[in-house]
């Protein structure tokens, strides 16, 4: 504590001398610091310095600054060129990865039109020319979901309505959009009460294509008109 106090006193005394106060006055005010003030005063003999020539140094300094600045500009230009090339390459690679990834993803989902099996419109009005005079009758035969004869008229009535364009297999290769409840509001209660009562139309179309042949005419390319005509030879027409 004592030393710190003396440090402060000495500093105050030296500051007074520095500001121009006479040495005698300062020594009277700080008698303990008198000797050290004397040493500090002796050091002032070193204060005068010769006239140092700084012009050459200034010129060298500014030349060096200009040289460094020019080098920095050229470095920035080189870096910019390199960066533009790198950015172009990175962009090309990113696009390639994006396209390949999207292709693989869509193909895996079976929704890519090119990779998915082409829909075949096998159900045509000419498939059952003998069983029914109208084309609507050819769409109805389904052995698996019409086990009971009593349901047949209902199913027939439902399917006898004109097909919406969205249901045509040639228009939409995927079944999900075409089998929405809004497109066929009457199908759920009538067409599948016993076969799959709890399944939604869209799920039936995507998850169980083989169990719902009537819902997915495009997935049954092997449907034979002869079988359909023999199973429902007397399908009444509304």
């Amino acid at each position, binding site marked *: 504590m004592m030393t710190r106090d003396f440090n402060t006193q000495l500093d105050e005394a030296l500051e007074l001398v520095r500001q121009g106060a006479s040495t005698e006055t300062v020594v009277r005010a700080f008698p303990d610091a008198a*000797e050290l003030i004397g040493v500090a005063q*002796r050091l002032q003999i070193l204060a*005068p310095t010769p006239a*140092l020539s*700084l012009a050459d*140094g200034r010129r060298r300094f500014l030349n060096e*600054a200009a040289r460094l600045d020019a080098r920095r500009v050229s470095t920035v230009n080189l870096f910019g060129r390199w960066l533009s090339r790198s950015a172009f390459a990175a962009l090309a690679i990113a696009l390639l990865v994006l396209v390949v990834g999207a292709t693989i993803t869509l193909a895996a989902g079976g929704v890519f039109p090119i990779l998915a099996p082409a829909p075949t419109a096998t159900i045509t009005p000419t498939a059952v020319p003998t069983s029914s005079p109208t084309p609507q009758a050819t769409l109805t035969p389904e052995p698996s979901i019409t086990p009971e004869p009593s349901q047949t008229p209902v199913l027939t009535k439902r399917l006898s309505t004109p097909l919406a364009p969205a249901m045509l297999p040639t228009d939409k290769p995927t079944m999900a959009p075409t089998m929405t409840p809004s497109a066929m509001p009457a199908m759920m209660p009538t067409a599948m009460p016993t076969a799959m009562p709890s399944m939604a139309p869209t799920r039936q179309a995507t998850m169980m294509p083989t169990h719902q042949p009537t819902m997915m005419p495009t997935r049954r390319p092997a449907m034979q008109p002869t079988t359909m005509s023999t199973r429902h030879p007397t399908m009444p027409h509304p």
Partner: protein
Amino acid sequence: MADFSLSGLGEIYDLYAPKISRYIYHRLGDQALAEDLTSEVFVHFLCSRTSPDNLSAFLYRIAHNLIVGYLRRHPACLPLDEQLIAEQGDPERHAEMELERTRLRRLLTRLTPEQQQVIVLKFLGGLSNAEVGEVLGKPESAVKALQHRALENLRGMLAAEAPRSRQLELVGQMK
């Protein structure tokens, strides 16, 4: 390198170079060396990648590092400065003053580097305690303590040399 225009760099040099060169001169005692190292200080500043908050303290630190590097490579020499002698009128008085300077410089070199810095920056460079603290990277209280110890050491060395000086003086009178 800090972003300065050439004119800005010129102003910086004009503002700080005289102080830095005086500092180097008082530490090394060689005029030509002080000029060369001053130039080196500013080239180092150009090559530095930082923009210091306190440019003055930054330049003094570069100067100090250059001085330390120089003293490591070369033994400390304190040449008699002919120019200072030429500025004086009375040759005998000039010689006495120069001897005193030489002695003080030699004693200064016996102090620790930090004590030397405090003495040169404060008593010869005219920096305040706060400025010296920024150069040294120490609080003002530490600067005051260093100042006290430096002056105490100098006083002790001067007192130790006084009898020998008195003896030499008496020998000279006898001759």
